[in-house]
């Protein structure tokens, strides 16, 4: 039988991979993608418990998480594009200058 603990383990593993991605990779786009992975891990948990307790609140909250993720991705990529235009690089180490 699939209990919520299974789902929690799955989402934890996904969460860990996301955090690793953010920590280890140099390319800022891959870091953004790892953040999406983390948000997805959160969603899996929400829906697992919504299924567990048979009420829709978990799923409603998951929709809001997706909305926020979309907004964050749009603006984040806008910033990356603007940064890339001026500095010709998307390597996170070179993004240390406060004023360009």
């Amino acid at each position, binding site marked *: 039988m699939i209990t919520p603990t299974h789902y929690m383990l799955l989402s934890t593993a996904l969460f860990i991979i996301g955090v690793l991605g953010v920590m280890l990779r140099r390319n800022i786009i891959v870091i953004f993608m790892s953040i999406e992975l983390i948000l*997805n891990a959160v969603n899996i948990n929400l829906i697992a418990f919504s299924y567990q307790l*048979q009420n829709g609140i978990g799923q409603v909250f998951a929709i809001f998480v997706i909305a926020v993720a979309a907004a964050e991705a749009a603006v984040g990529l806008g910033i990356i594009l603007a940064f890339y235009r001026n500095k010709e690089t998307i390597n996170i180490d070179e993004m240390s200058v406060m004023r360009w």
Partner: protein
Amino acid sequence: MNQAIAFYVLSAFILGFAVLVVSTRNTVHAVLYLVLNFLAVAALYVLLTAQFLAVIQVLVYAGGIVVLYLFVVMLVNLKRPPEDHSAPQRHSWIGFGLSGLVLLELAVIIGYGSIAPPGPANAQNTDLAMYNVEKIGMLLYTDYLIPFEVASMLLLVAMVGAIILAKREL
């Protein structure tokens, strides 16, 4: 019985693609694995009878956000070869250390929380499963109307921000 098989297969896909997203050198391949990961997660939602969420996941995440990523990846590495792991001085052991810490903390929570309340008898044909869309719609427009409007405001702000950032000259 087949629900368990489905769960294990899907979670294997999800974790496998997630690892690939984080580890591949070529950014476009990473984006591709991300799409496959999202589709596997959507399949998992169907397993959890959250049909509306599965479809929204495919529509918004896989069909919208990741296309955005693909566009930026295309525009960005039009000229540069896929980046290589230069600058070894990047001490990766901090990364592993921190993630280990987070892992430990979550393991503790799961340990305590393992006595989860038992699930409903057959969750397949409860009304949340059958009329999933109507239920969520009702919830969204009654109890959660204010967060719904705030979310729409947030999206509007994000749109305006993205346009201003990306536009060459106003």
